[in-house]
């Protein structure tokens, strides 16, 4: 964290060497102390943790937020995500001394975030940056019962006392004292809760697989590497309701038999690390974590590990490699993390929103949660809404509610005098939806998949009729190219080639040939890429060509507006 640490190399190494998942925190300790990672620091870490130096060098260069030149950590990094582009981040980067661009930093519902050392500033003018406050979701707009947002607008919720006042840790107390792990699994199963990070895998099924897997110690990992552009709901939950995540993880530990937990937090949320660590300290002091949780036999503790800038580390097997200090390529599956996760042991990797949903579910029952959905759908999902929309922000919506209800009735639609041209879904991974889809789609996976899209992690970025959709697509593909890990050929080369074609710097000048190339690349990427990044990325070009063929033709013919 932000404090200046005068410690010597050996002290830092001894502080971390025997801790679980030690590489990232040790690298951060040197990064914080020196303001960059020097060659000497890497040599010290390599010898301290017995990692081959070439390996460590390669792994460090994988992460874009580890500075490798003196003074690098303090240089401003300006978000150039799709929504910040609309706000003029390019001018801000030029105007700020030594600034560089960073991919979406998860504050799309406010002014442009600038990460400077361990502080997040916001603003649009170089001279007028201010400290970034936590962003509270808009008041419950639909008047519909909420799950994870029900209490977050209350500032007292952040402290253990405040959390307990509004019913916090009631679920955990009841679970460890009155319920069996099997009963907790049944409640979660009955609620219909699925992975809210985007994959929609049934949570109870995952937990049961970990519970039944041989070997141990078992692990619960909270995936807080919220890196999808246009998604900023996990940040809000962690900043405003940290104990809900800790309680959710502890319930997961109780249900799965896990004894250790990690929160893998993205680099771009430095203040959040402090919030989580304070909450963990409070929980330990109150025996809500530790060797005897609430006086029972349950043993569980949580460690926060900060990432260092790599979208792919939100992919669960990359995340596990990153935690273990390995090169963060995704792993081949099977085996899956439920049997071979952290250090090869059974591991439940769950998203922040998923885990935060668990305490209210256990507290209020499966039927209550399932009943929050619209129609036959179960539960709720936070939608991060941003871009050309009157009231951007996080909205907790009943799954299955019409998209247009949220977009127009709750968030006020496009700004005055404009109409909505397109929205992205699942941040960027669901590609674009056009006017017709927006009119008809409901916010649930079946409806989205029927339109060739995804609900995913719930990011929706809105673009009005003044926007150049080819340029928006270029930014999106450029993000995927920047974040491609480089392991599998179709993604590594495909994202680059699609970006070049959307930028107009390479590729055929004849629309039919251009489209044939883009389609061929996209088809192969979607079919044979090794992980979700390469599979999802061509959704951008596919939906662009389907929805906006005239803009594509104009682009290829060199007649873009």
């Amino acid at each position, binding site marked *: 964290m932000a404090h200046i640490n005068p410690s010597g190399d050996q002290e830092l190494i001894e502080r971390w060497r025997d801790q679980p998942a030690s590489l990232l925190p040790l690298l951060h300790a040197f990064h914080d102390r020196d303001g960059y990672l020097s*060659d000497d620091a*890497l040599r010290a870490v390599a010898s301290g943790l017995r990692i*081959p*130096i*070439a*390996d*460590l*060098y*390669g*792994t460090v*260069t*994988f992460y*874009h937020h580890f500075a490798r030149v003196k003074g690098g950590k303090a240089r401003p990094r300006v978000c150039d995500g799709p929504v910040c582009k609309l706000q003029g981040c390019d001018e801000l980067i030029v105007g700020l001394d030594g600034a560089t661009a960073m991919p979406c930093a998860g504050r799309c519902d406010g002014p442009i975030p600038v990460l400077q050392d361990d502080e997040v500033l916001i603003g649009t003018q170089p001279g007028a940056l201010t400290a970034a406050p936590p962003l509270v979701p808009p008041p419950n707009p639909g008047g519909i019962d909420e799950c994870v947002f029900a209490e977050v607008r209350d500032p007292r919720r952040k402290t253990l006392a405040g959390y307990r006042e509004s019913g916090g840790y009631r679920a955990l107390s009841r679970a460890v004292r009155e319920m069996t792990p099997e009963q907790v699994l049944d409640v979660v199963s009955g609620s219909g809760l699925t992975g809210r990070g985007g994959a929609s895998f049934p949570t109870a099924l995952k937990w049961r697989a970990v519970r039944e897997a041989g070997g141990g110690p078992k692990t619960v990992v909270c995936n807080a590497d919220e890196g999808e552009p246009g998604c900023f709901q996990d940040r809000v939950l962690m900043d405003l309701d940290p104990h809900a995540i800790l309680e959710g993880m502890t319930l997961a530990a109780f249900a799965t038999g896990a004894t250790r937990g990690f929160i893998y937090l993205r680099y771009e949320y430095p203040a959040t690390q402090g919030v989580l660590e304070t909450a963990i300290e409070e929980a330990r002091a109150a025996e809500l974590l530790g060797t005897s949780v609430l006086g029972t036999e349950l043993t569980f503790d949580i460690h926060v590990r900060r990432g260092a800038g*790599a979208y*792919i580390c939100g992919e669960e097997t990359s995340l596990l490699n990153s935690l273990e200090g390995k*090169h963060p390529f995704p792993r*081949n599956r*099977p*085996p*899956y993390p439920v049997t071979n996760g952290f250090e090869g042991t059974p591991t439940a990797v769950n998203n922040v929103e998923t885990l935060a949903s668990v305490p209210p579910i256990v507290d209020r029952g499966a039927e209550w949660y399932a009943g929050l959905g619209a129609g036959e759908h179960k539960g709720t999902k936070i939608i991060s809404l941003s871009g050309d929309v009157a009231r951007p922000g996080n909205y907790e919506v009943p799954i299955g509610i019409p998209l247009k209800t949220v977009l127009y009735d709750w968030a006020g639609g496009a700004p005055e005098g404009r109409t909505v041209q397109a929205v992205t879904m699942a941040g960027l991974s669901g590609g674009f939806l056009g006017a017709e889809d927006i009119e008809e789609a409901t916010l649930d996976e079946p409806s989205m998949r029927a339109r060739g899209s995804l609900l995913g992690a719930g990011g929706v970025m809105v673009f009005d009729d003044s926007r150049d959709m080819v340029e928006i697509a270029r930014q999106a593909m450029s993000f995927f*190219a*920047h*974040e*491609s*890990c*480089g*392991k*599998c*050929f*179709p*993604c*590594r*080369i*495909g*994202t*680059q*080639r699609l970006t*070049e074609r959307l930028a107009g*710097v*390479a*590729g055929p000048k004849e629309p039919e040939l251009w489209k044939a*190339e883009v389609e*061929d*690349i996209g*088809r*192969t990427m*979607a*079919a*044979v*890429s*090794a992980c979700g990044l390469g*599979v999802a990325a061509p959704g951008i070009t596919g939906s662009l060509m389907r929805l906006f063929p005239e803009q594509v033709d104009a682009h290829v013919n060199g007649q873009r507006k």
Partner: protein
Amino acid sequence: MSSDGSSNGSSNGSPTLTLDGKVVPFETGETLYEVARRHTSDVPTLCYDERLEAFGACRLCVVEIEGFRSPVASCTTHAAHGMNVQTKTEKLEKHRKTLMELVCSENPRGVEIDPMRGHASQEMTDLAQRYAVDGTRFEGAQSGQSHPDDPNPMILRDYDHCISCYRCVRVCAEQEGDYAISIANRGFQTQITTEFNGFLKGSECTFCGQCVQTCPTGALADNRALQHTREPGEVELTRSICPFCGVGCSVDIMSKGDKLVGVRPAMDGPANEGALCVKGQFGWEWVQHPERLKNPMVRKDGVLVEASWDEALDRAAEGFRRVRDTHGRHAIYGVASGRAPHESAFSVQKFIRAGFGTNQIDNCSRA
């Protein structure tokens, strides 16, 4: 989670699967690629080396499995009983062509890769020919940056031709255990690197050359062999045993006419399975060095002159005898060559112990 990789087998005997319409047996733990390769030689791949852990990078070896939504990489998918697998559908071949077009587009176009670069150096060229790909489609930026300034005389680091299959990095770690090279950066900016992107000489590299021999594009090349590119004649391979030590690594000696032009490890060598060390791989130039001794020499009137073996051995025996008679048997010290196999080392210690009556016997490899 439709395939958990288990392959418990049929009720009677070994498990089977259907491969391109034919029922074939397999052994539990085998991958689909291993099974397929036994029956058909043409599932393409660029990132596979049977000595290394399957990696799943190039995606050329994808196959279709009935009931699976998308093709899977056969190299990382375990065979399971009852699977119905297709290795060569029109769709798969189309994906493979697109993949080859992509990977050829990131390298210099129209450059012939000299087969003398290394054992696997033609893999990419051969596949490009098979899929009729010339690198013109999907044109765009080139990946990888060559390191022509690396002053080592053995390994050429021509990364312009690199396709980021990481076989070099993996063979260095998994086979040689050196961890001298790794992967820097991400995505299209990926680059094979040493620590801090320095020269091989300053790294943990032992110049065993295994990275050169597994490279499927010739991006890493045998610089010693390349010095002989312009020599006239065809390269002939002769199977032999490396003379440097007692391990007995199999090598294929490359020659043009009477001239030795390079050495390759034999991938099927029982002692080395494709591995060599720096001496066996690159230390062969002495064979045709003008100063190499080809006859025994003895000193006459202070001058070394050629002699017959009989004369030379008599002279040596005489010297040993003189030393023993003058200074006693413990004045003799035998050092067996590290290049001698076990049996010869045994003979040397027998000779010293029984012949001279001293236990002063050692081996140069012990230093």
